[in-house]
């Protein structure tokens, strides 16, 4: 690319074009005006106007998680930037590649408590992989190049580039660098991977289990994981973000474990003598009480982030590196060891697992119920779509019902806020997903509490004519909190009942969207068909469900993983 004299704002546009960015979510404001002006009329990246910067951030996350590409969002200084904070924190917890670009007051005003000034680099330091305050326009091309590079490489994550208004207006000779050189950003892996030790452990284990996390999705390693799992022929359990890392319809797959995992999945991990963790971080929501977690298990832990190794559970054999590159090497080594020494006999272990599955199935009973059960709603949606949809959720009971009953078969098919647990994630995420995967059916499974946190951006979804279908499992409660109140606070429903407003059908209408409602199984059948057939913009379905249906099984926070309560 030759040199030419342009403004910093135009340099941002050129950099986004050079990075192949397809869409930018955001909202203009005083200090990001020059950038918006430079983007005026730009078709690629396309500009999406949201009604709140947080939504722009989550939409960029949804886009990134659905496509595997970097999500991009803009915000102005001060409140525009601080509104992005929740989305950035969410992306940090869930390792989502995100580039947030904010305007700031002119460099001469920084530190003077100027109008709409916020120290957004200071604020986002603990929730970004890295961030930059650009004080000299000449640094801008390099910093933008580095920002995209840092966001998508290694363990992906969010970065923020804060650009004061005078830097946006300054003219300079622009040249976008082709390579990146950051002296402190080559995570040094000093040791050779201990593949032989790992293979030996696998050969000697009689009760192994594979534990898959969101790292499989980040690495795009589901094929490699499948080959490895089928070679081991061992049970597979996943985290919430591991859904899709391995088909949940596969006979080896036990689905999700942890706080709301199945009993059989939790019994399996607790009874195992070897855990092979791939791209997972032993979050408290999956381990339960750490000191009682899988007491007899040795651990092989493969992760791209060395800081995750032995952070919570000590790895017997750590393997640091990119899953997609490293796992086939381990597969080859295990294959060699099996050929030489024979396969371990896992038949007794698999029989035990099958017994747990038979004895403690996941279940619910809609027949004879006066009200719709949320589990039934999710399963009916799954059945009627053949599971061929990208699903996203808010946070709460509906999210766990979706995780339990939506059987995910493909990677990037179940997109949710896991680590931070951000209510309001569903609608923004659905917007980003649908833009990233225009031809596909995008279904949001939301709760009434969660939906109300970001519903103003129905306007955005309508502006773009996105055919997203949001099913609000409406129980007129902040349901997950109410569930805890039922179980641990003697049914004292402090501030969890939600009044029956707004009327979601009228609300949908007000935003020019199709609004539907279902209270019975017959109505549900009908509205699902209607919603799936509707192509002219978003559909909001108000599904009235049994108000006090709880998510079971459940491991109380801080309890051992095999200490599950259920509805009996």
């Amino acid at each position, binding site marked *: 690319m030759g040199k030419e004299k342009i403004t910093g704002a135009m340099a941002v546009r050129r950099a986004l074009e050079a990075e192949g960015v397809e869409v930018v979510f955001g909202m203009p404001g005083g200090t990001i005006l020059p950038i918006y002006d430079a983007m005026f009329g730009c078709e690629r990246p396309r500009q999406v106007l949201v009604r709140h910067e947080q939504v722009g951030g989550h939409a960029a996350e949804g886009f990134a998680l659905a496509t595997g590409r970097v999500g991009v969002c803009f915000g102005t200084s001060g409140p525009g930037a601080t509104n992005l904070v929740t989305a950035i924190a969410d992306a940090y917890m869930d390792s989502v590649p995100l580039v947030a670009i904010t305007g700031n007051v002119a460099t001469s005003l920084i530190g003077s408590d100027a109008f709409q000034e916020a120290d957004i680099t200071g604020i986002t*330091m603990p929730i970004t992989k890295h961030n930059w305050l650009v004080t000299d326009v000449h640094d801008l091309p390099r910093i933008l190049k580095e920002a995209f590079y840092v966001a998508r490489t290694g363990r992906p994550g969010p970065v923020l580039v804060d650009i004061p208004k005078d830097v946006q207006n300054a003219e300079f000779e622009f040249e976008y660098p082709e390579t990146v050189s950051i002296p*402190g950003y080559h995570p040094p892996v000093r040791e050779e991977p201990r593949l032989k030790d790992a293979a030996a452990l696998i050969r000697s284990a009689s009760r192994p289990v594979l534990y898959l996390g969101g790292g499989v999705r980040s690495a795009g390693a589901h094929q490699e994981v499948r080959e490895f799992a089928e070679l081991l022929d061992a049970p597979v359990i996943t985290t919430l973000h591991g859904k899709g890392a391995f088909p949940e319809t596969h006979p080896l797959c036990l689905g999700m474990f942890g706080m709301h995992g199945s009993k059989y999945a939790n019994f399996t991990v607790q009874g195992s003598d070897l855990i092979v963790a791939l791209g997972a971080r032993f979050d408290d929501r999956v381990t339960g009480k*750490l000191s009682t977690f899988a007491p007899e298990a040795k651990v092989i832990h493969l992760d791209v982030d060395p800081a995750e190794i032995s952070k919570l559970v*000590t790895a017997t054999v750590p393997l640091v590196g990119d899953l997609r590159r490293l796992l086939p090497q381990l597969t080859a080594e295990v294959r060699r060891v099996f050929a030489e020494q024979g396969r371990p006999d896992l038949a007794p272990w698999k029989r035990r697992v099958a017994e747990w599955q038979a004895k403690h199935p996941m279940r619910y009973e809609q027949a004879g119920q006066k009200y719709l059960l949320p589990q039934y709603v999710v399963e009916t949606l799954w059945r009627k779509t053949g599971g061929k949809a990208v699903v996203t959720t808010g946070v709460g009971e509906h999210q766990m019902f979706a995780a339990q009953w939506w059987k995910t078969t493909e990677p990037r098919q179940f997109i949710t806020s896991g680590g931070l647990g951000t209510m309001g994630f569903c609608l923004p995420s659905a917007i980003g997903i649908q833009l990233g995967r225009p031809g596909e059916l995008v279904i949001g499974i939301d709760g009434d509490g969660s939906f109300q946190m970001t519903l103003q951006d129905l306007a955005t979804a309508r502006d773009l004519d996105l055919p997203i279908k949001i099913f609000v499992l409406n129980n007129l409660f902040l349901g997950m909190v109410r569930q805890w109140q039922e179980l641990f606070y003697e049914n004292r429903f402090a501030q969890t009942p939600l009044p029956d407003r707004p009327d979601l059908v009228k609300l949908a209408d007000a935003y020019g969207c199709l609004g539907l409602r279902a209270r019975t199984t017959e109505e549900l059948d009908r509205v699902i068909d209607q919603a799936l057939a509707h192509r002219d913009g978003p559909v909001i379905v108000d599904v009235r469900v049994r108000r006090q249906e709880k998510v079971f099984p459940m491991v109380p926070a801080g309890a051992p993983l095999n200490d599950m309560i259920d509805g009996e």
Partner: protein
Amino acid sequence: MERTEEKPAGSTHTISLLVENKPGVLHRIAGLFSRRGYNIASLTVGPTERADYSRMTIVVRLSTKTVEQVVRQVQKLVPVVEVRELVPQDLIERELMLAKIRTPERNHAELRALAETYEATIVDVSPDALVVEASGPAGKLDALEERLRPFGIQELCRSGRIALERGFKTLAPPSIK
């Protein structure tokens, strides 16, 4: 299986960092320590043989296991070029101390003798106060501090530890040499 549920009280570890000399780097590192609950006993930062890099020496009191975590977490920070725990037997450590002693003039001679024993110098003298400057390993300064206390320490200031490894080893990775 071993676990790390609680952070056991630990021993003193010296962590040495080579960082890019850019605004906000100290904030990033200090912030990481505070949000992950790693207590800092001392932190020093200063220029190095290259203008674009600074060197930090951070002393922590933590279990060996936690220190490994600290090193890995710090390594993830983009402006941190290299970080390592320096092993005590390969370590040259120094600290600087200034102590203002308020004591009658008749004690000055005794103080001077004491200072000499510890290779310290008197850098300021007024009728009823003097300032002692000393440097050396932390243990030596602790001992001197103890000996000075009966004379009446008015103010004391210690720099925190700086350290280098013995021999030809350096912290800088080959990529920046």
